């Protein structure tokens, strides 16, 4: 545990989560989820859970983002509300 990093990273993750659900454009939401996964991986690493961090890194940095972009490509991208 490194306490100062802990609080800062939790704040960042919170910002990312709020931004991802309030944004209108779906592709932007996907991009912000990418940032969310980066910070989440940092948080896991900081708590010394290396295996979980590795899983988070490998899954959401590549395949997660790619599959979400594919799903956005098959739907209407901009929501009206």
């Amino acid at each position, binding site marked *: 545990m*490194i306490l*100062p*990093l802990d609080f*800062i*990273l939790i704040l*960042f993750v919170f*910002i*990312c989560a709020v*931004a991802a659900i309030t*944004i209108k*454009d779906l*592709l*932007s939401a996907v*991009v*912000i989820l*990418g*940032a969310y996964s*980066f*910070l989440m*991986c*940092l948080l896991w*690493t*900081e708590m*010394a859970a*290396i295996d979980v*961090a*590795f899983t988070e*890194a*490998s899954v959401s*940095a*590549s395949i997660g*983002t*790619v599959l979400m*972009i594919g799903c*956005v*490509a098959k739907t209407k*991208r901009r929501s009206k509300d």
Partner: protein
Amino acid sequence: MNDFFLILSVGMCVLVLFCLYRGTFGPGVLNRAAGISAIGTKTLIILLLMGVIYDRIDMFIDISIAYALLNFIGTVVLAKYIETTGEA
């Protein structure tokens, strides 16, 4: 030496906050993508700094290599999607 690395990583986290401003409020997808790719590079360095602080850099470096390899794919796929649909 450990204190130096700790201060440095906190400073990098503050820089991540500024990039996150561009990522969340930046107009359009492209600005957001630029901000997020900047965050990716900084994340890689912070991971290695944490590895030095915990004194287990041989374990943390695998995650860094994975980030370095995979961060590229996300950007390329996003760019190709924007290029094929033609809407920025």
